């Protein structure tokens, strides 16, 4: 699936998007897989309360299932307006 990063999450991980091969059942499982990959992922995901997630471009939470999902995005709380 496509995994996208925005704002300081993108900066910490160093790339805006990547394709991740995963069998993770939920967003939280995917985060756990990414965190053990490299320090830059750990740095981005160290505090999940500071992060928001969208699945297929819909805001959701870390319990959201990933079955059939094409795109997951991680980012800090939004600051529009």
């Amino acid at each position: 699936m496509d995994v996208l990063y925005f704002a300081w999450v993108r900066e910490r991980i160093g790339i805006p998007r990547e394709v991740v091969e995963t069998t993770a059942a939920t967003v939280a499982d995917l985060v756990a897989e990414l965190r053990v990959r490299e320090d830059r992922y750990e740095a981005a995901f160290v505090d999940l309360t500071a992060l928001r997630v969208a699945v297929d471009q819909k805001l959701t939470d870390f319990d959201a299932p990933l079955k059939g999902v094409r795109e997951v995005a991680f980012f800090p709380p939004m600051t529009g307006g």
Partner: protein
Amino acid sequence: MRISVQEPAFDLGAETASFAAGHRDMGAIVTFTGIVRDLPDDPLQAMEIEHYPGMTEAALREIAQDAMTRWSLGDALVIHRFGRLVPGEMIMMVATASRHRKDAFEAAEYLMDYLKSRAPFWKREITAKSTDWVAARAEDEDALKWW
């Protein structure tokens, strides 16, 4: 209803006039405009706004649709810019049209409260001393509970 996520500047007067035209049954038009504010102690060189193409438009459309359902609105407009802006530049505007002013005022405030915390935009402030992502404010999240 019109949603525009765009890099170029918009013309507030022309957008407002165009929005107001053709609504003969609407007695009230409310507009709000957000402007890049300079920082008092550390002058702002620029504000950079990042967004999530695709999701941004869909999120704004959903918020505007909610407002149209919740209040008696004849129309709604949301324009939000991204990219690099300097102090004094307009970041975004909303406009609402209703038969009577209360619906238009309330719906405009609702649109603002929701798009601040639920539309995928992130602001970064660039000064001579630093470059910092703007932190979300707890008050902005709390504002949603009021609705």
